[in-house]
């Protein structure tokens, strides 16, 4: 690749003695990296992880008054309850419940901590996706990945610390601000890896620029910037500008290798479903995320069903069946592969959407948004597998036992990474800001 030879080769890891951010260093880190599998649009908990016999019994009736009233996005609070058509089975030694839509994930039952009592505040996608990323339903706060990047940095400076991928071209709700740095400096934001030959924006030398020309330009840029930095030796940011080009060069050298899957064995490719049209897309992203984690990328986020594809306001049967089919095997493949390589121990895998769905029907065969009780799961990174955490009421409407709000979930993720959610602060406008907005507590029992 064009010009990396020109520049010093050196992997930069945070130097020993680098001062730690507040809130880091007191908690034992269990995970080094996070892979967040974001099912965008809101998967239905009562059709995947949280069986509700009462729902099928009361199907067609209105929500009993004892359940109180709810505001829903499409005003479906009074619509008849919709039965789940799924077949349910217990899996693994732990005997956790999974529906027949996700047989492969079910085969990992003993690695999963299934949280049935998640809670969020946004009733619409925009607020929901924003909160699941930033903790707040209102925009402007840094995303979780940015906080982690700020808190513990990257283990590999040749790749972005925070990488985002999505399974199709549609825009994720709210667009790139979901992985934005909010009020923090732009350097902490996530970088979206796109498909095709240029995974990072502007990574490639443009077609009109030859390798020689690029080299000449870089030499000149380096030279004039070195001269300028020498005029102001105590302005460290000028030195950082020089380093910025060096890092860009290393990124240019390294990123294509990370996204090149040709070196993977046939068995691995099969494990992720790369041999099947249905699973190929998500399989590729899952495999890529393993490769990134191997390279020390701190936070990888995959949007599955980007553009609210999980949002089954109608025809939930065909909608979820298709999405599950494309996601189930690759996700299980990722877990199995990480485990086989010994990576699952310090890689936390998180699965979930911005909210779940209502027991009430919409348009006869769909379900409305439900942030008051839904399921997510975590695996690896110190998480004790084979446990079911919390519960919803008998219809799956509200979290009842051990409710974990998004702030608690974030606090838990941070805690597993060795970050104290109340200790980590960033000073903005003079005010100490925290990743979970001064709320949330880690659910420490998740490690068993």
């Amino acid at each position, binding site marked *: 690749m064009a010009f990396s030879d020109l520049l010093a080769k050196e992997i930069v890891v945070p130097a020993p003695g680098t001062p730690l951010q507040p809130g880091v260093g007191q908690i034992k880190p269990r995970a080094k990296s996070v892979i967040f599998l974001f099912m965008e649009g809101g998967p239905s908990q009562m059709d995947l992880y949280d069986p509700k016999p009462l729902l099928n019994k009361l199907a067609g009736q209105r929500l009993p008054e004892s359940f109180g009233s709810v*505001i*829903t996005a*499409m*005003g479906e609070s009074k619509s008849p309850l919709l039965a789940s058509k799924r077949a349910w089975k217990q899996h693994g030694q732990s005997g956790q419940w999974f529906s027949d839509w996700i047989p492969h994930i079910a085969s990992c039952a003993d690695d999963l901590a299934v949280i049935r009592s998640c809670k969020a505040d946004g009733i*619409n996608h*925009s*607020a929901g996706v924003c909160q699941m990323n930033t903790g707040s339903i*209102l*925009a402007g706060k840094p995303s979780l990945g940015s906080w982690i990047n700020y808190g513990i940095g990257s283990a590999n400076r040749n790749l972005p610390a925070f990488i985002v991928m999505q399974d*199709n071209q549609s*825009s994720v709700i*709210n*667009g*790139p601000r979901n992985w934005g740095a*909010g*009020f923090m*400096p*732009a*350097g902490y934001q996530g*970088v979206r890896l*796109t498909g*095709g*030959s240029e995974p990072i*924006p*502007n*990574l490639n030398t*443009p*077609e*009109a*620029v*030859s390798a020689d*020309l690029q080299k*000449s*330009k870089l030499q*000149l*840029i380096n*030279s*004039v*910037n070195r001269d*300028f*930095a020498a*005029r*102001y030796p*105590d*302005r460290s*940011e000028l030195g*950082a*500008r020089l*380093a*910025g*080009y060096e*890092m*860009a060069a290393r*990124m*240019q050298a390294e990123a294509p290798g990370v996204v090149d899957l040709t070196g993977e064995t046939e068995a691995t490719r099969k494990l992720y479903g790369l041999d099947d049209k249905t699973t190929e897309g998500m399989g590729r992203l899952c495999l890529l995320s393993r490769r990134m984690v191997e390279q020390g990328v701190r936070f990888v986020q995959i949007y599955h069903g980007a553009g609210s594809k999980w949002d089954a306001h109608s025809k939930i049967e065909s909608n979820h069946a298709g999405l599950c089919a494309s996601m189930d095997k690759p996700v299980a493949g990722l877990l199995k592969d990480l485990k086989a390589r010994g990576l699952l121990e310090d890689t936390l895998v998180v699965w979930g959407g911005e909210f779940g769905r209502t027991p009430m029907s919409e348009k006869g065969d769909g379900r409305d948004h439900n942030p008051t009780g839904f399921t997510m799961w975590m695996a690896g990174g110190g998480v004790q597998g084979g446990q079911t955490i919390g519960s919803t009421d008998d219809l799956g409407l509200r*979290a009842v036992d051990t409710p974990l709000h998004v702030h608690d979930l974030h606090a838990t993720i941070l805690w597993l990474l060795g970050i104290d959610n109340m200790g980590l602060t960033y000073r903005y*406008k*003079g005010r100490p800001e925290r990743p979970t907005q001064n*709320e949330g*507590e880690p659910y420490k029992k998740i490690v068993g």
Partner: protein
Amino acid sequence: MPLRLSILLGLGLTVLTVGTPTLRAADNAQAEQAVALLEARCFKCHSHSAGKNKGGLVMDSLAGLTTGGDGGAALLPGDPSKSLFLQNILSVDPDVMMPPKGERLTKDEVALLTGWVKDGAPWPQSRTKAPSADRYLPGTIGAKEKAWWAYQPVKRPDLPAGQARNPIDRFIDARLTQEGLTAAGEAERAILIRRASFDATGLPPSPEAVTGFVQDPDPQAYEKLIDRLLASPAYGQRMARAWLDLVRYADSDGFRIDDFRPTAWRYRDYVIKAYNENKPYDRFVQEQLAGDELFPGDPEALTALGYLRHWIYEYNNRDVRGQWENILNDITDTTGDVFLGAGMQCARCHDHKFDPLLQRDYYALRSFFNNTLPVEDRIAWTDPAAAEHARRLASWERKTQAIRVEIAALEKTYRETATQKAIEIFPDDVQAMILKPAAQRTPYEQQIAALAWRQVDYEYGRLDRSIKGADSVKHADLKRQLAEHDQLKPNEPPFVLAVRETGAQGLDAVIPKKNTVVPPAFLTVLSGQYPAEPAKITPTADGTSTGRRAALARWLTDKSNPFTARLAMNRLWQLSFRRGLTPYASDLGRLGEPPSHPELLDWLAAEFMSKGWDQKALHRLILTSAAYRRSSSHPAPQAGQLKDPQNTWLWRFQPQRLEAEQIRDALFAAGGDLQADKQNGPSVVYSEPTRSIFTRIMRNNRDPLADVFDAPQWFNSASSRDVTTTPIQSLLLLNSPFMLKRGEALAARLTKEAPGDDAAQVRRLYQVLFARLPTATEAAQAAKFLQEVRAQKPTAAVSAALANDFQPEKVPFRDGQGAHLESSHRKPFLASGATEVDLARGFTIEAVIVPRTVSDTGSVRVIAAQVGKGKADGYWQFGVTGQKSRRAPRVLVLQAFGPLLGDDFGEAVHFSGLRIEMNKPYYVAAAVRYADKNGPGEVTFSLKDLANDDEPLLHDRVITRLTGVRTATQTIQLGGKGTDAESSFHGVLDDLRFSAGPLNDQALLYANEDWRPDPLGFWRFENKSGTLSDSSGKGRDLAVGAVKAAPDAKGGATPLAALCHALLNSSEFLYVE
């Protein structure tokens, strides 16, 4: 005893807690145990020692418990059943039970607490010490808190002794002397003019201005320069940027549908004008908070109310109460930041933890805004303009009455259905408010109903879609008839984003959960009372408004207000030195830092007010100070570096990186293509080379350049800019097509200004970018670079795209780049034609488009076409109709001239009902199935709004008599038709695909990007795969206009352009020294 206690409670809790300490303090084992239990189980979240007061509650004193938190008093001595904390301990509701996690309290523990409360909750003697000495306790604000510098009235300090003529320097010099530091000398003139130009106007100086200034013998040359800069219209454009950051101005809604706000720009222009005309700052503040109440009839003051409207808005949020709450909080938070320099939002849920700001103060501030109703129907104009408009409108109305009546009649049932559907989606209580007669609504109900009604209005805007069948045809026809009278219609009046109020009757804010009603009041810390006495309010004379905002504005602009002048002066200082005298420009509290030069800040504030709040006068004073004029280089910097590495005492100037907008403007200015003549008016997209202040701020779709250079998010008030350096930034500067183009533009300028002379071009280059000539070494380095690059093999990939001014532009919400086409470009992309066989069954043309404009006439702007050589061949074209289209404006259309059913040869025009809005990204398609002996064919149009995932893929099917085309082998033209200016597509084109036969839904590009149904051509404009190459594998690479797509070493990236591009990457270009 119990009786006496309840009387005391009736008098107020303060009396109880302060007045009877001996009564309450007890030395008793039960009390000791009870409070120890609280400490063990509750203090973690509810105590000063833990620094937490969740739910607003602290439990480490009796006062804390009886005052209570969000839920009201937590403890009523003697009455366990009315002691909320105990009830919550007993509760099994997961939302309220305490502690929320961990073991429940045992029966014995509960019994202990119950007994303790029953006995009057005596507080143990051992714990009567105040929980934390440096904190104010409920019920008072201590003298220490009140003594904080920012709450003291501004007092003009005496000038320190000294030689300096500029008073500012007296303060700065005195401090330097005190610190034993020697200041650097004055910077060179070339550096000064570049620094001052960027700081005062946001733009670089022209080489001529630099030379003129450097050579000016006048000793007052610098002062004259500053006067010139402050008088330039660019001044307001620079100053407005900082203000717009503060008030979180944007042109879009910022939620899932990031809807454009077409009239927001009038507020932006108001701010620019205010700075340029040097509007007194007190008036500037008054107009933005209460322009309608204080200056009725003044269009500018009405426009200024945009300040109250820049909050984000979610078009489909059914939780209307919740959204309204968020909006009012947003206005309150922003006002706290901008006008009080106080972190009011920290006091929204509880008293501020560091500053003496009460939760009550937060809601008292909110009460000033609590009566507003956001409206878009207010018009910023004068009476004569209104009268003229009314006259013209009346004439149009007379002429069109019959048509409009007919339209209304046709729409009636559709409108009723839409209304009903939109309303029934809301929660019952909101529906009730909407359905209530307007006159019966309370002020709050008016607000909620109005906010909800926006969602009904949204459905009205889409009524076209619900009208089907014959009605649809008739409707379109009537609309067209109506449009025929458009020339009679007056121009749209200057609507502004503004507010009205619900009436003269005030509606006070209520603290959630506590249900405390809080009338408008100013900060308690500034008041002699606790809490502060309600503000004196006079409703406006016409009875339409409470006058609350006017009261707030008057208070803020009273010379005794401690915040307003200090904040303004500190921000002005920050603009010049990048660091304010106090570093957090929107927080003068304890979380900020005390000012480095408190006397200077006060002197500036006092001077500012005594000069009638004259911003330019004070700005001039700052820019002409010796402190501002210092060199960044110090001859002996060691002492300063050691004692004051942060340069707090200003012993030299600090080199500063330009802000994102300055970088963008400087890039366009360097290439000579900055359209500096745009001085106002509607916002434009960021690819237009106007000054950045005029580009649209779409919150969810940012300019990548602004993004990497730390532009704020514009969701909340931002008081300063970060400076970060990242590899992503370097990649953008180094490799992006945008930057390569800037290098080429700059090279073209140099070639024009210094033709044929390398050395002269390099000299000019340095003057343009750095306001100086190159040193001998630098000149030699540049010459060597040019020589080196010339010796390199010409880049094979330099394509016709670059030679032909190909303008890459990213399509919002899509990856990669598309092709930007200017209006009237006359240079469509050309690809070789297909075969007769290819198009024998019909064809499909697809594209992603972002239209900028359509034709003002009826002309069709062409997306794709094939035109025959002679009339006998006919043609086909797919595009968007013009404003005066004979059928419908701005719709997708497929026109053809060819063989028709019945052995005819003639025109077949297919108008779709699919309407296009400007500046939105769309996927568009037309699939043509020919007519044949079995009957007519069909043209299937498809349209998908790519900016809004809620929008489905829309189709419209139109019958056709076309039996084929005779132009299959002709050149395929994309983005225009020949050299016809009127047909030239204006906007961005991307991912065009031409396929044989009519594609079904599943095969469309939109439905399935991965699956390629073997197209005849697929043009994606990707940099890597070849901007103009055909990615279908059919080899139909594009040419531009008449130029071949062959490599052209002469065009595009010349050695000079490469040099220019490299130096645009330089730190010296991106920094002021």
